[in-house]
Each structure stands twice: as C-alpha cells, then as structure tokens.
C-alpha cells in the first residue's frame, strides 16, 4: 500500500502545464443563442453551524450579516438566507425512516435526495448507527438526466479532502444505492476538463491525425462494449439490469467527450474568457494544505462553469462529521489542535473550542466568498456568471451541538439569471418549510418547469414561493 499515492501524480508536466488562453468554439453563440444558461452549484461544508453567529439580524430586506457569514459581505445583495428549512420531517420523525443513520449521515444522504437513508443493519461504518446508503436520486442527478444539458459534463462532482468513501462522503446519487463519487485530485480534474480542449482541433481547423485515429478507435470500442452491455441486460434479472443500465448510461455520458464529437467540448458561455486556471503544487494528504487544494478545486469549478463545460456542479469540503484539522488557523495566537467534529460538539459558550469552532466556520465562509468572487468575476452580458447561477451553501446538520435537522444552515447566492429575488433574509422559523420545497424551487429555476414535488412524499410539495 502506498498511502495517498493518488496525490503525487505529476500529470501537469509537459504540454498540459500550459495555461495560455485557449480559443473556444462557441457553439451556442454560433446557433444564435445568446441567453446565458442557468447553473446550479451545491457547496457542502461539514459539521453544521452555530445559529447565534450564523443568521443575519434585521428584516427580510434590511439585514446585517453575523460573525460567521461576515466574509460574504461583498456579495450581500446577491445572497438569500433561508432560515427554517427542515430536513427532519422527511428524514427523522417516526413513520418515515425513524432514526436510520446518524444525523450527519441522514443529512448528507438526504440533503439533495429529500429521502431517508435505506434501512440496513450492516452499514455501521459511520457513527454508532445502522442504515444503508441514500435511497433515491439527488436533485443534481435528476436535473442532469431531465435537462440533459449540451455540455461536456452533464454534471460534475468535485471534492476537497473528502478521502472517505462511505455514506457521509456522498451527497449525490443517480439512484438508490448508487452514490456518485466526487473527483478529488485537481490535477486529474484539470486533465479531464481541459485535456480534451488542449487536444482539440487547432484554430485553423486541422485536427491531429493521431488524435483522430484514437477517437475513431474509441468510438468502435464504445460501440462494441455498449452492444455487449445491452445484450447482457437481456440475460440478467431485473435488479442486475438496473445496474447494467446505469453502466450503459455512464458510458454514453462520457462517450461524446472521449470521441471528440464536435460541439461538445468547452463551448464557452457568452462572453466567457475561457482560461484554464493555474494550479499550484501541494500534497492532498496534508490537512494543513486544505486552502491550497480547495482554491485549486474552486478555480477549476468556476472555469468549468464559465466555459460551459457543465451547468450542474456539487462541491464537497471534507466529509460530513469531518475530523479535519485546522492547525493553520490561530485562536489566541495558537494553532487549533482539536479536530473539527470534536470541536463542533463543545457546549461551552466561551473558551478555546468556542473560538476555534467560530474560526473554522468563518474560514469556510471565506472559501464560499472566494468562490462567489470567482463566479462574479466572469461577465456574461449585463450580468455575471454568479448572477446566472444558483449556489446553495449547505451543511448536513444545523446547530452542531444539537445535531439539528430542523433548521438547516442554507444560504443561496446568485439569482438564476433573475428568476430568484436575491438580497434577502427569509425567516421561516415560525412556519418551517421542507427541504423538498427548496429542491423543487431549485429544479424549477434550472428549467425543470413541470417539477412539482421532489423526494419522499411525506415532504411538502410545490416550490418555496417566497423565493421568486
């Protein structure tokens, strides 16, 4: 075993290290469509929040940011705070799933699926609880399938130091028991996103003959393997058929970009200057280099959206119930020694852990602010990429000491191209709204106009009307 070997690839040596701007074919513009697409980003940070320092003070239209969210001040007019969204009705209470999985696990698997975890006593690798994996399709995968955007990646899952491979590390599902793993190595992400662009036809339209042959060979192999999978689907039972069907879908999903189908690679949003980011050098196995790894992934995420490589993106920081270390953050002039999860459960209202938790949560808000700033820096017509996006910043639980699922720490940024009215602090605490409704709203804003309910039927239907 070679621990963390995946961190030490040097894929960027040679040609791929080039960072010169790449001229892009703007297929959509060529088709006469100048309307910027709407994008969805879900950014997950672990271990909840501290309500007293997270939620703004003031009214819906006139509010002041609190300590933890202060780093977002520059984008205040583009934010929507959603206080009082609950996961618990569909995921926690009696009739529908009891206490399947810890709150961390339940929140992780339920956030975008709005469903309880599957039952299963053997899944005990998290907490002291038993459950299975997520029990249904997550919103991002639903939209990728339903809208089938004409982008290189129907959806993109990125992670920073997620490392783990169990239920607390997966927010995205194509179906029950089908978690979607995030890509964690920025160098690998870079290669997947921009490697094909590098090898794309030159500006004078001449493709590399060797590349064209590779594409043709790949096409033949796809045809052969897909036909074989389809043949096998007729021979297996219904459950296995679903697995092979997912396999076939995944192969078809990657085929277009691997065989050089024209018009599928890096089309570029209107006016986007589509420049691959420069990646620094860092070790993914070192907790102390969280910022560097996170920045690289955020830069790649922003570039992927700006270049219209994808319109649906999930972004995970560490895993839920994360024990990530923050020795690089100082509290009372000393680095934080404890791990995030342990600190998040300290009840004291003063002292080192109190300050450490605040510092970590604020640090995460700074990262969100960095990402929003990146998106806002891309102009798209009269708006910015941020305006044309909906970013949901979320955690798997609310108040961390309580493992609360009844008031999720949700903040939206961007307005989906003006579809959502931003710059507001919406407080549903006295009449809680279900997570399901938020997902319906996000889906509708993305263009799934006929979406009226999402997830477990115990949740409320219809959108969050206050958002529009």
């Amino acid at each position, binding site marked *: 075993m070679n621990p963390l070997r995946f961190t030490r690839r040097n894929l960027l040596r040679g040609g791929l290290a080039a960072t010169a701007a790449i001229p892009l074919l703007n297929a959509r513009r060529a088709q006469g469509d100048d309307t910027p697409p709407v994008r969805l980003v879900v950014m997950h940070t672990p271990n909840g929040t501290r309500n007293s320092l997270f939620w703004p003070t003031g009214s819906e239209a006139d509010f002041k940011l609190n300590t933890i969210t202060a780093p977002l001040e520059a984008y205040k007019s583009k934010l929507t705070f959603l206080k009082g969204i609950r996961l618990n009705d569909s995921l926690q209470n009696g009739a529908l799933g009891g206490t399947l999985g*810890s709150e961390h696990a339940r929140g992780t698997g339920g956030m975008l699926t709005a469903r309880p975890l599957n039952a299963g006593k053997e*899944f005990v690798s998290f907490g002291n609880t038993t459950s299975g994996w997520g029990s249904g399709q997550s919103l991002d995968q639903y939209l990728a399938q339903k809208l089938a955007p004409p982008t290189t990646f*129907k959806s993109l899952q990125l992670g920073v130091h997620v490392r783990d491979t169990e239920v607390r590390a997966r927010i995205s599902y194509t179906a029950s028991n089908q978690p*979607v*793993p995030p890509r964690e190595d920025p160098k690998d992400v870079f290669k997947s996103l921009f490697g094909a662009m590098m090898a794309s036809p030159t500006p004078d339209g001449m493709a590399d003959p060797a590349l064209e042959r590779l594409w043709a060979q790949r096409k033949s*192999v796809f045809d052969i393997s897909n036909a*074989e999978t389809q043949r096998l689907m007729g021979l297996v039972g219904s459950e296995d058929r679903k697995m092979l069907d997912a396999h076939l879908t995944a192969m078809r999903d990657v085929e277009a970009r691997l065989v050089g189908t024209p018009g599928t690679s890096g089309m570029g949003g209107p006016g986007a200057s589509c420049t691959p980011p420069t990646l620094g050098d860092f070790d993914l196995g070192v907790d102390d280099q969280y910022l560097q790894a996170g920045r690289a992934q955020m830069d790649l995420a922003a570039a992927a959206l700006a270049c219209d490589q994808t319109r649906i993106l999930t972004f995970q920081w560490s895993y839920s119930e994360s024990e990530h270390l923050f020795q690089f953050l100082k509290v009372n002039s000393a680095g934080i020694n404890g791990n995030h999860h342990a600190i998040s459960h300290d009840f004291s209202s003063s002292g080192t852990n109190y300050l450490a938790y605040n510092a970590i949560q604020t640090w995460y808000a700074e990262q969100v602010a960095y990402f929003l700033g990146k998106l806002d820096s891309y102009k798209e017509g009269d708006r910015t990429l941020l305006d044309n996006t909906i970013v949901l910043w979320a955690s798997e639980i609310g108040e961390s000491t309580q493992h609360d699922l009844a008031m999720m720490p949700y903040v939206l940024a961007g307005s989906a191209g003006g579809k959502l009215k931003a710059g507001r602090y919406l407080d549903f605490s006295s009449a809680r709204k279900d997570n399901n409704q938020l997902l319906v709203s996000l889906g509708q804003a993305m263009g799934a106009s006929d979406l009226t309910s999402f997830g477990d039927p115990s949740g409320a239907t219809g959108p969050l009307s206050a958002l529009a």
Partner: protein
Amino acid sequence: MIRGADDKKAHLLERFGLSQDTEHSLSRLLQSLKLAFPLIVAVGCSSTDGAGTDAAAGAAGSGSTSGAGAANSGDAPPVVGGPRPSAEACAQTQEVVRTPLRRLTRTEYTSTVRDLLNVDVSATLDIPADEVTGGFDNNAAVLTVSSLHAEKYVLVSEALAKLAVQKLSALTSGCDPTTTGEEACALAFAKSFGRRAFRRPTTAEDERQLMAAYAAGRTGGSYAEGIEVMIRAALQSSSFLYRLELTPATDVAAKRVPLSQFELATRLSYLVWGSGPDDALLDAAAQNQLATKEQVAAKARELLAQPKARAALNNFFEQWTSTRRLAITTKNTTLFPAFTNELRDAMAKELPAFLNDVLWSGDRKLQTLLTSPVAYVSGPLAQLYEVTPPAPNADGSPARVELPAQQARAGLLTQAGFLAVQGHPDQTSPVLRGKFVRSMLLCQPPPPPPADVDISVPSVDEGATARVRFGAHESAASSCNSCHLLMDPIGFAFEHFDAMGRYRQQENGQDLDVSGEILNAGDASLSGAFNGPAELATKLAGSKLVRDCVATQWFRFAAGRSEAAADACSLASMEDAFSNADGDIIDLVVATTQTDAFWYRPVTQ
C-alpha cells in the same frame, strides 16, 4: 449474564463509580440491555422501541429498489451467537440468496489486469476507490459504475493496453504474424486472451467483437495497434468488469441453480486470489474437475499454496481490521510530529508481514493473530514500539521483534496501525476502539445514540484522562450510557496507547486505569473483568462468539453482501468448520467453498 439483575446493578455502580442517584437510569439501562440482547442491532439506545425501523424498511423500499443489505426473504438474517438451524433442516435442499451482480473492485481489477497482462498496473489507481459498506469495499449492491468510473475504465484500459503490446510476442504466445498471418494470430489471441479476460471460453460473438476491435486498430495502424485496441475492448467489456453468472436454470421447479464449472472457478479464484482464474484453473473447469465438493476443496488448497493467495487474504484482513484506512489517516502534526508518511507506510506494512508469518509459516490460528506479543517493524516503527531496530530481512520486509512485556501488547488490536486508525487525529478514542471490538469481533454493532440528545465529545485540552473525560458518557445524566457502557469499558483497555499507537505510561500526568469488562456479550467466556489489552485479547481469543463473528465477517467479504436468512446453514457450517479447526483461518477459507451459498445461485436472479 449469570449474575442477577441486582448484583449486576451493584457491580456497574461500583465499576463505573456511579452514585446511587444513578439508580433510575441504570434500571433503564438494564431494561434496555435486556431488550437489546442478543438482538441488539437496530434497537434504540434510549427507550425508543424498534417500531421505527420496521416502518423505515417500508419507506425506503418505496423510494428505492432493494436496500443494499435487505434480506432476501421475510425472515431475519442469522445472528452471531443466536439460534442455529437444525441439522435436519440443513440436510434439506435450501434456497440460496441472490448476490447482486458483482463488479470488480478496484483491488480486484488491479490484480486481474496484472495477471492478464503482466505489466505495471499503477494506472489503475486512477479508478475511484470503492464505496465502503460495513467495513468492506466489495458490497456488490453499491458497486455501480458512475460516469467517473466509465471515464477511467476507458483511459486506464488504454494505458494498460499500450504497455501490454510493448511485449507483443510474449503476449500473443509467440504467434508470428508474418508466417502465421496477422488475422490468424489476432484470432488466436482473441480466443486465448478473451477466455482469461471473460473467465470462460469465448463465444463466436465474443470473437466477432474482439476482431472488430482489432480491425479498428489495424485500420490505419499496425498489427500491434490492432491487438492494443482488442485489449482495450476486452477490458471495457461488461463481461470483464462484472463477474457474470448466467448459466440458465435447467429445472424451473428447482429451488436453486448449480453454478457452471467456469462460474465456480471464477468464484474460487476471486475468493482465494482476489483475481481471475488462470489458464490452469480454466482448464480444470473445462475438464469438469470442479464437480465435487472434495475436488473444490482440494483445488482451493492448491490455489492457497500459491503466492497470489497472500495478497487476497491481506485484503480481507486490512479491511476487517480497518488498517486499510491508514492511507487516509492524518494526525495533528504538533501533537504527533512522529506521524510521518514514512511511519504510516511502516505501519501499513506490519499487518501483511504478521499475516505472512502466521498464515503461511505459522499455526494459521485466529488466536495467534489476536494474542501474539510481537511486532513487524521497518523504518521508524521500531522507535515507536521502543525496541532496538532488528536486522532487516533480506527481502526488505519488516522484521519480527518481541515487544516489551510492560506494554502488554497482543496481536492485531495493539498494532500501531490499528490503534492509529481507531483514534481521532488529535486524541485517542476509547469509543472507536471499543466499538470496533463490539462490531467487528463480536458482530454486535452498538445501538444508535438516542435522537435529539446533546452529543458532546471530550476535547483534547481538558487536563484529565480519557476515562474521566468520557465518563460523562456513562453518567446518570447522560442518556448515552446504555450504549457507551457497551463500548467504552472495552476501549479503555487500550488507553496506554496514544492516538498513533505509541505506549504511554500516563495521560496528562495521571496514571491510567486500563481495566474493563465486556458487558453483555452473550458468551460466558467473555464475562468477568480484565486488566489491560493482553487480558482482553486472551478473552477474545478464547471466545466461540468471536470465532463465529470472524466467520461471519469473512462470509460478508467472500459473498460481497451481508448474510440473509437463507444463509443460515452455510454460515453454520463455516462456523463449525472454523471452530473444529480451532480457529484455523485457512480452513475457514476452504470451508467457504463447501457451502450452498458458494455452489448455487437462486433460480430467479
């Protein structure tokens, strides 16, 4: 269990220093323990009853296909240490449990392509790590193919094929295209390589497809390029990526379908080698030499004698003991500056070296794995164990050393790698270590924490021992006590080892109390107090329950799924074989091949 409830209560009060005020909660605790055992799983920690769980199964079903662990029938799966099926019942023809289609894990994929192509297979690390379910990365229900998998299967197959054709002559068994003809050589390769890749003789359709891939490479390219594209096609085929079992049922009225010879050979090779069958094993299948249980047992022992078996068993033990997680374990660099990549590598090498000694030149016993007071050191690990670095082995493998008696180390559970994984990045975790013993050695996962309870984890900067800090878990004020009494008193045994497994005399300047008890395990040989990890290990090593649990863990790993009701007879026979062989691990592996669960698949997949 022998003591009456009142004796037990007094005993608990005394052991955990609880006052009489705790009596109420202890009554509640005893009540819940009584309810919980032996069917402790899925029962709430507090007064919550199990009703929610039953309802939940229905709810999950409504939104999903089958839960990854759902039993095949309405009957409850067998419980370790619980009621056993009668010999009469097991003598009848039993139905068998469906295993979902098994996709090769990344580990299996890697071993398989190494054996197929004999090239550097480091490219396979680009394939995403497999999802871990119940400690194992091969639970078939969740091993699906995402878009990321699809992308990597394509690119990795290209990287491997490119390397493979650099040794074209050896790869194609010396077939000379200039004399034999390119097409003829390619077809011969399609048949021989296809048979090994698909783990069965190729069909005309397979050959047509592989030759189509060859043609795609040969067109505009060379003969070698044709072979290269053929290899890519084989490695991207679902017949390669999945362990298909498609032999049709010949008797529709039968309760189960016997596997074909090639399917049995494939199960056998992945069980013992973690890789596909080689030509010799496929030849044996072709000659119907896996027709009887005796033949399969003999073949299993034959395969076990080959070096490939070592990596496969290491894979199980690294996952079962959780030391596979060393690769993703980090420690606070201020508190544990010694926890370098070098030390972590040395920790990761220790378990395979230990297994190498015990399983392949030692007594092969579970007891030895649990109690042996030795370490296998390389690099900085000798310093951690406070032993004089021994002379390195000629092959560079970690060298065996006796450990100082004072440390009271014993076997797997006191290896530094295990202790480092079962700890937080900044402090020890008696809870995690106790929970490990409870769930992976006793097969009794603790019930979940009660809903809506404040869950406070002791922080590292409090100046006390963990026993004092974690005492809150067991205090009357905490509704956590009924669960934590099952874990923490076991985990405290390891408190002489810090969060990276280093021996310490004291914690925060205070002496450590490493006494404890395994409460309510349901096995008399586990009851009674112990002091320190060596005594705990001795108790575990002498327990039938522990042996049965290990057999069950191995079953889960071997079958790629959790046990279900219809597995009861198969499991019982493995437990019996393991016990009769006095905990011989190799005999347990062979016993797996003698079960109905191994020989058959259900009529309806």
